[in-house]
């Protein structure tokens, strides 16, 4: 059985191609928007590695994102270091925090893990918020954006957009490779049956911790891009609302698929745009949170497998209820995980 259906490959390829070509057509705002979405997509991918692949529901992803962003700004306080130095600095800072948090929270399971990661993110939040170092609650500016050589200067939105694209593509490919490697397969195994993994000789704790750190590092990269894009960071980057937002992205897109994380990032941002637009909702748009909330609830109830899972879901509908139920039961242990990663 082919591991990646041609359709999926085609879809991914088309998506990336469109992203690559987009900036050429778009105006300055279109450019901004697509850059932002791509950055969120990187963040979503980092979380997908934890939630969709390893089965660890982390509710503190914003902490790594924010730390990456803050590291970027604080490192360039004295004068902007070269791009690569800055980026790796941000990534390392995030990874370091991930190491600390992961080592502790992985001692817990399930609901516990969710709350603990959340609490640790909140701790990072209040650290940044209460210490003058990062400009406190008002946030702090990144005055000069980094550059690499003469032709990659992130002051130029177009360049930034392409760099973001490169990062997204890089992350995607990296994770795709990782998923088919021994490491990735082991993570999948842990998601589905940790007890058996231990019984067969995997020290699951180490695998999970490695995944956690990796995820934190990628989130840090996203944070770096975000700081460079906005040129401004604020404690709210670490707020739990963002963590929630990213979770929604990957669920909306479809858990257990890399492309799901990307689709989710797009879908989520577009939803926000939609509900905020006065053109559509008129005066009511000031209560746009209502629509957003209802949509989230609805999507959880109606499409547990997310957007990329929809075709499958419909097919099962067509295939008749009994079969649908059977399949649902078969899929139960790893809700929404398609055969693709199961073989």
């Amino acid at each position: 059985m082919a591991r990646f259906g041609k359709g999926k490959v085609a879809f991914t390829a088309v998506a990336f191609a469109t992203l690559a070509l987009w900036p050429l057509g778009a105006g300055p705002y279109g450019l901004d928007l697509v850059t932002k979405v791509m950055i969120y997509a990187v963040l979503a991918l980092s979380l997908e590695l934890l939630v969709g692949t390893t089965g660890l529901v982390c509710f503190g992803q914003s902490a790594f994102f924010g730390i990456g962003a803050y590291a970027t700004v604080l490192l360039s306080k004295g004068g902007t270091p070269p791009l690569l130095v800055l980026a790796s600095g941000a990534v390392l800072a995030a990874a370091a925090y991930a190491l600390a948090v992961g080592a502790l929270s992985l001692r817990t399971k399930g609901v516990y893990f969710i709350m603990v990661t959340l609490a640790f993110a909140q701790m990072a939040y209040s650290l940044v918020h209460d210490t003058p170092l990062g400009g406190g609650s008002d946030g702090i500016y990144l005055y000069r954006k980094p550059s690499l050589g003469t032709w990659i200067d992130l002051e130029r939105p177009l360049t930034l957009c392409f760099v973001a694209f490169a990062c997204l593509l890089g992350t995607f490919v990296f994770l795709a490779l990782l998923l088919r490697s021994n490491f990735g397969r082991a993570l999948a195994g842990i998601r589905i049956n940790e007890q058996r993994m231990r019984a067969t000789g995997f020290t699951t704790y180490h695998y999970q911790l490695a995944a956690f750190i990796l995820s934190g590092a990628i989130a840090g990269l996203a944070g770096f891009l975000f700081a460079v894009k906005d040129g401004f960071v604020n404690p709210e980057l670490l707020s739990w609302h963002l963590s929630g937002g990213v979770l929604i992205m990957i669920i909306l897109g479809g858990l257990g698929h890399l492309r799901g994380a990307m689709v989710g990032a797009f879908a989520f941002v577009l939803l926000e745009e939609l509900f905020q637009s006065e053109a559509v909702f008129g005066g009511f748009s000031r209560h746009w949170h209502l629509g957003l909330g209802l949509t989230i609830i609805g999507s959880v109830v109606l499409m547990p497998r997310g957007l990329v899972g929809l075709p499958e879901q419909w097919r099962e509908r067509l295939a008749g209820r009994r079969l649908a139920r059977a399949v649902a039961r078969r899929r139960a242990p790893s809700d929404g995980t398609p055969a693709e990663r199961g073989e």
Partner: protein
Amino acid sequence: MMASAEVLLRGVELTRRWGGLVAVNRVTLELSRGAVHAVIGTNGAGKSTLIDLLSGEFPPSAGRVELLGRDVTSWSQARRARAGLGRSYQRSTIFPPFSVLENCRLAVQAQRQKPWTLWHDAYRDAATLRAAREAAAGVGLAALLDQPAGQLGHGQKRQLELALCLAIAPQVLLLDEPLAGMGAEETERMLGLLSALRPDHAILLVEHDMDAVFRVADRITVMVNGAVIASGAPAEVRANPEVRVAYLGTDDPPEGGAH
């Protein structure tokens, strides 16, 4: 007992308390290569807990576990498994969404994990795949390699469970009711398999099917309320009056146990 045989796994004075009640009470037993050691007892006698202690699912409250002559009491379950200790669970513990082949491949991978080879496609590792296919074939699942494990029949799941233990090339096998819920011919195949494994493995068998136990076991230990009340060759155990009263609940020797 058979002093000549080499002892692979030894549990000494193993005890496990849950708050007040004692699940396993100062149990000592040895598994030696070439022998099937059956542990029988009523439900809740502590058989599964004993296996958990031996395999390192959780640590004992007191006592010691020796694997291949080394004290492994402080070792994690994973480390014991890598050292050659395989176990099966009472409820099938497999990877339902994965194919049978992938189930076995993962288990084999445990022996050569190499997590850092990120660029390597786990499915292209010929050696691992070969070992995985062998493991599957070994339990008679060769025909079902591409089936999602979740779709297998109950008996087949039990076989796969065993395959996952064998895939890590263990020297000691701890089997928790491998025959539970199996049909007649499935049982036969499983027993044949056990006999085939006997020569170069040390096997602990927890089983309710008395027929099977008395057929394959070289040695039987009887547990009641977490403690061992009798241990010895099948004949001795069958003759032991204490066992009859406490467990077999009858005075006439159990020919065909499960009636």
